[in-house]
C-alpha cells in the first residue's frame, strides 16, 4: 500500500460518502477536492455545486473562494444565490444534496458554531459567521463535516448555535420544524465519527493508523461511544492515484 498524507486520508474519507447522482454542495479547499475526486472515483454523475450559484463548474484551476471567478467558467448554469439556496430547500432537489462543511465548534448532536466564542455581543473571538452554513444544515439530506479534533472544538455546549445538526436527539429536527436529514459523518485529523440512528449522538466509527480511541477521547470535551470503532480503511492505490494525478496534480490543496 502507498504512503499517504493525512489530508489525502481525509479527502478520500469524504469521497467515499458521495454517491452517484448527488449534488455536492462544497466550499473551497479539501471539500472541493473531495467533490472533484468523487466524480472520477465513485460518482461520475454527481454535480459540484457552490452556494454562489455555479452548477457543475469546470475547475481548471483551484478557486480560492466560492466567489472566485474560477467557479463561473464552463458551468451548466450560472445562477444567483437565490437559485442556489432554493435548490437546497426544494423538496425534490434538496433530497439529492450532500453538503460538505466545517465549523469552529461542534457538539455531540453535530450542531455547529461558526460565529463566535464568548459573549455574542462582545466576543473573545469572532469568526466570519454562518454564510450559507446554517442554510445548508437546515435544508439538505446529508452533511459531511470536516473538523480538526481539539477539546475547544468538540464542546459540550456551543458558544453560539449557528447551524442545526440533530438538535437534541432523534426527534430534535422534527420538533424544531426542520426537514429530515442531518449530519452524516464528521471527518477529523484523527478519526471518523458518525451518528447513532437511535440517539442521534456522535460515536467513533473508525480511527486512523497510529491513533487510539483513547487519544481521540482526550481531545474532546464530551464523551462518545467508541466500542465499535475500527481502524479506518486506508486510501487505496487507485483512489490515491486518481486524487493525485487527476484532481490536484500541482498539489495546491493536498
Amino acid at each position: 500500500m502507498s504512503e499517504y498524507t493525512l489530508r489525502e486520508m481525509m479527502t478520500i474519507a469524504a469521497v467515499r460518502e458521495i454517491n452517484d447522482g448527488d449534488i455536492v454542495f462544497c466550499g473551497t479547499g479539501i471539500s472541493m477536492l473531495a467533490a472533484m475526486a468523487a466524480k472520477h472515483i465513485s460518482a461520475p454523475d454527481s454535480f459540484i455545486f457552490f452556494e454562489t450559484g455555479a452548477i457543475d463548474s469546470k475547475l481548471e484551476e483551484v478557486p480560492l473562494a466560492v466567489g472566485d471567478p474560477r467557479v463561473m467558467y464552463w458551468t451548466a448554469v450560472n445562477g444567483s444565490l437565490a437559485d442556489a439556496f432554493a435548490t437546497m430547500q426544494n423538496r425534490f432537489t434538496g433530497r439529492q444534496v450532500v453538503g460538505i462543511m466545517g465549523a469552529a465548534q461542534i457538539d455531540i448532536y453535530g450542531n455547529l458554531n461558526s460565529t463566535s466564542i464568548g459573549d455574542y455581543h462582545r466576543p473573545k473571538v469572532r469568526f466570519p459567521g454562518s454564510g450559507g452554513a446554517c442554510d445548508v444544515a437546515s435544508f439538505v439530506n446529508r452533511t459531511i463535516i470536516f473538523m480538526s479534533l481539539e477539546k475547544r472544538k468538540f464542546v459540550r455546549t456551543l458558544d453560539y448555535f449557528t447551524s442545526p445538526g440533530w438538535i437534541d436527539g432523534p426527534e430534535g429536527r422534527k420538533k424544531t420544524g426542520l426537514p429530515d436529514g442531518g449530519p452524516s459523518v464528521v471527518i477529523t485529523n484523527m478519526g471518523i465519527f458518525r451518528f447513532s440512528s437511535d440517539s442521534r449522538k456522535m460515536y467513533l466509527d473508525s480511527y486512523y493508523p497510529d491513533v487510539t480511541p483513547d487519544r481521540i477521547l482526550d481531545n474532546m470535551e464530551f464523551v462518545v461511544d467508541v466500542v465499535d470503532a475500527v481502524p479506518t480503511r486506508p486510501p487505496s492505490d487507485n483512489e490515491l492515484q486518481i486524487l493525485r494525478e487527476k484532481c490536484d496534480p500541482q498539489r495546491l490543496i493536498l
Partner: protein
Amino acid sequence: MGASHTKVIDLKSAIETYVPDGAHISIGGFTINRNPMAAVYEIIRQHKKGLHLYAHSNGQGVDELIGAGCVARLEIAYAGSGRFAPTCIRFRKAIERGDIGFEDYSNYQMTLRFMAGAMGVPFLPTRSGLGTDLIRQWGFQKTERQNDIKLPDEKLVVLDNPFGTWADTPKVVLVPAINPDVTIIHVQKADADGLSRINGLPFVDVEQAKASRHLIVTCEELVDTDELKSDPDRNQVPPFCVDAVVHVPWGAFPTACFGRYDYDPAYLNHYKQDAADDIRYKKYLQNFIYGPETHEQLLAKINPAQLDAIRADERTGYATGLDRR
C-alpha cells in the same frame, strides 16, 4: 431617450448625492468578486460616517468600509475573503473591540431579505435557521428597534404554517424585507440610462439593486443602448431602477470582475498584512485611499505589470496561470 436624460455622473458626485452620513446602504459582489471597490474607496475618501451596512458575503468591500470607520451598524451573514482572510480582519477587530453594532443572519436569509425588498413584500418565509441562535440572539434589541423607524420591530419571526402541514412544513422563519437607502453594484456593461448587464454569476446584485430606494451602477464599460438591447436575455437591471451611472474601468479592483480581470493576490496579501496592524492600517488608508483623489490615481500606484498579470483570459474569464500565492 435623449442625451439630456443621461444618468452618467462622476463617482465623487454620485457618492456625495446618494450616500449621506448615516445612510442605510448595501453593496454588490461576493467575497473577492465584483465588489464596487471604486465606490467603496470614494465613500472612505469622503469620510462618510455612521453608515448602516447590509451584507450577505460582500467580503472585501465590507472590511474596508468597517476598517475606515464608515460603518456604525452591520447586518451580515459572512465576513470572509476566501484564502486571503478566512475572517475579514478589520471586521473581526471592530467586533471584538465593540466598535460597531452588528446582527447575524445566514446567506439565504439575507438574500431573501433583499428579495423581499425587491418584490415589495414585508417578509419572505424560509425553513433556514429554525432552532438556532440566529433566531434567539438579536444584535439590536427591542427598544433600539422600536425607536428606529428604519429597523423592523422583530429580528426574525417563527410562524406556524397557516396551511397546516402543506408542503410537509409545520413552521417557517419569516425574514423581514430590506429596502436600503442606496445600493451600489459594479457591472461589466451599462448604458447612459442605467440598463445593466452582469456576466458570470450575478450573486445577489439584482435583488439588492431592485430593493433599494436609490441605485448607483458603476461599470467597466459604458455602451450604446442598442448594444445591450440587441441581446436582452443577458441584461438584468432595467433603466427605471437606476439613479446614477458611473463609468469606472477596473472599478471592482482589487476584487475580480469576470471576463475582465481577476482579483489581485498581491494587493489582497498586502492588505491582509496591513489590516492586521492598526498603525500599518492607518498608513494603508493614507497611502492607497486618502492620498489618491480618484480610483484612477489609486490604480496608478499599482505596478502596471501586476495589472497586466490579472487581466482575464478571453477563454476562461479569469487570469489563467496567475501566481496567487
